[in-house]
């Protein structure tokens, strides 16, 4: 340690009271409790089967990427990524489009029937038909085992519309629209040329909520999708991780040419986990502030 850092460390420590030391210590302990499970999982995913031992390991005895090789050689990972990206992409684009189109008219204070239409939309936030009636509808529409069954039902989300409407009403200067109206611009032009560019913070926030929410959604994918070809990533992971689908794992072993004693189910499970969460791990530190911004926008009065 150089002299300079020693000096500044000393200065910090002198300034720190018992209160601070306790406080910092507890916060560090809390963070360790978050990180350690992730680290433990990672260690197991790169360990040899004979080393995955009877107690928790802080470091691998010998590093091997066999489980990652096995996971990446299975087709399921790519099927899962494709279906998840398909779902996230279309849901996000369409949700943003419909939300903007809906929130804008509802932000006009003198639109006739505005309150009635708002109530029609808001009511769905507080009361739903429930699981079985929704399932029956999807079946009636012949959308079972169709990728669009995961996209269409959630496109209009009342909460997003309320937040966007509030932003349009309270955070955008009316005078800009008025001068455009005088210039004879029609409402679509005003919306997409003036309002939307000015609303990027709220659009980014809702877009990111939608991306992360759909990336992580698995319940409706589980009940609406039957065929392996259309499984989303979370569902692939769930079948390996939680219900341990043995026939699937056997097929991975075949493809990768791994025999029984070289193979550890735990290691494979956690390799799958890491391959699934990698994109989220990489981007969440950068998107968290937009997420947080949304909470603040959301706490604006409606």
């Amino acid at each position, binding site marked *: 340690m150089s002299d300079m850092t020693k000096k500044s460390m000393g200065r910090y420590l002198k300034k720190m009271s018992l209160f601070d030391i306790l406080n910092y210590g507890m916060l560090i302990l809390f963070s360790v409790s*978050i990180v350690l*499970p992730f680290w433990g999982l990672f260690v197991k995913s790169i360990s040899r089967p004979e080393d995955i031992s*009877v107690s928790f390991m802080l470091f691998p005895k010998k590093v091997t990427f066999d489980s990652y090789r096995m996971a990446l050689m299975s087709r399921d990972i790519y099927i899962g990524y494709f279906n998840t990206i398909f779902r996230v992409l279309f849901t996000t684009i369409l949700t943003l489009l419909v939300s903007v189109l809906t929130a804008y008219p509802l932000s006009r204070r003198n639109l006739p029937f505005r309150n009635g239409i708002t109530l029609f939309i808001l009511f769905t936030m507080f009361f*739903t*038909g*429930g*699981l*079985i009636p929704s399932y029956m509808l999807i079946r009636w529409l012949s959308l079972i085992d169709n990728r669009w069954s995961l996209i269409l039902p959630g496109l209009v989300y009342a909460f997003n519309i309320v937040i966007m409407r509030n932003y349009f009403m309270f955070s955008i200067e009316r005078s800009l629209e008025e001068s455009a109206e005088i210039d004879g611009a029609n409402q679509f032009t005003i919306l997409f040329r003036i309002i939307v560019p000015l609303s990027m913070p709220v659009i980014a926030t809702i877009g990111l909520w939608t991306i992360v929410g759909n990336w992580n959604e698995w319940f409706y994918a589980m009940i609406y999708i039957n065929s392996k070809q259309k499984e989303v990533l979370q569902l692939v992971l769930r079948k390996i991780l*939680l219900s341990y689908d043995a026939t699937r794992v056997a097929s991975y072993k075949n493809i990768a040419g791994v025999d029984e004693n070289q193979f550890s189910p735990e290691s494979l499970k956690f390799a799958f986990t890491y391959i699934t969460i990698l994109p989220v791990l990489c981007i*969440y530190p950068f998107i968290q502030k937009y997420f947080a911004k949304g909470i603040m926008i959301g706490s604006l009065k409606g």
Partner: protein
Amino acid sequence: MASISNNINLRSRFWSNRVYYLMLVPAIILIFIFCYIPMYGIIIAFQDYRIGNGILGSQWVGLKHFRILFGSATFYQIFRNTVLISLYKFIAINTIPLLLALMMNEVYHRKFKRVIQTVSYLPYFLSWVVVGGIVIEVLSPERGLVNSLIQLFGGKSIYFITQPEWFRAVLVASDAWKNAGWSSILYLATLSSIDPQLYDAAKIDGANRLQQVKHITLPALYSVVIILMILSLGQIMNAGYEQVLNLYSPLVYNVGDIFDTYIYRIGITGNNQQVPDYSLSTAVGLFKNVIGFFLVLSTNMISKKISDYGVW
């Protein structure tokens, strides 16, 4: 005469706003199909619904399913489980994040604070499939972190997620682990809006750190805490099915089965190898939704009355 002119007036106002109504068409159609048609489907809760007969052809049985429901011990068990799990989570998620925010507010190294915050947000961004997998591994009797620690201190390892006396604690703790960091954001934002001059004035008056927290920080948080508590009470019928579905097993149904998981099992997979019962499942769902509806409405009203802030 007056009504005719009103009529014309309305029509012309409608016509002049036609582009706005055009914009609303996609949302209205989607909401009608995907939200209101399922509401019509609720009537099967009052029928003996048979797939072959359809809604119109199935036999009307009135309140039969509700009578079966209210007469069964399972119903009281899932009701109890739902409310208890929600209440325990309510206590955890209204105290731990508050404490975290207060602690982080006392940190004056900005980098340190940012790292702690970013780390604490991580589990919030992952699905319950992933977090469920992590929880099962961390609590595993042989290899898990928690049991390794217990054994290190000479205890005997416990298979937490299969023990009825431990299962709810697992749910509450893992919920807090996943969400506490993220839930502290709103408190932190409120804290950062406190005027620093207040603290300077308190220091001049000789207040120590804890006294400053007690007399400046806590009063500033008061209204946010109350609002969040009231609004989360409105969600008491939702005990977190995505979490439970990824952690429970028949061994802990008696303490962990909640409304949503029960609805799912009897309606989709079929409970105990029985065929799925759409009508009964819909009846349970309707009961849950009606109670939830009034809870949300009333908590929202209370929140609006005392603080001027509601969900809508």
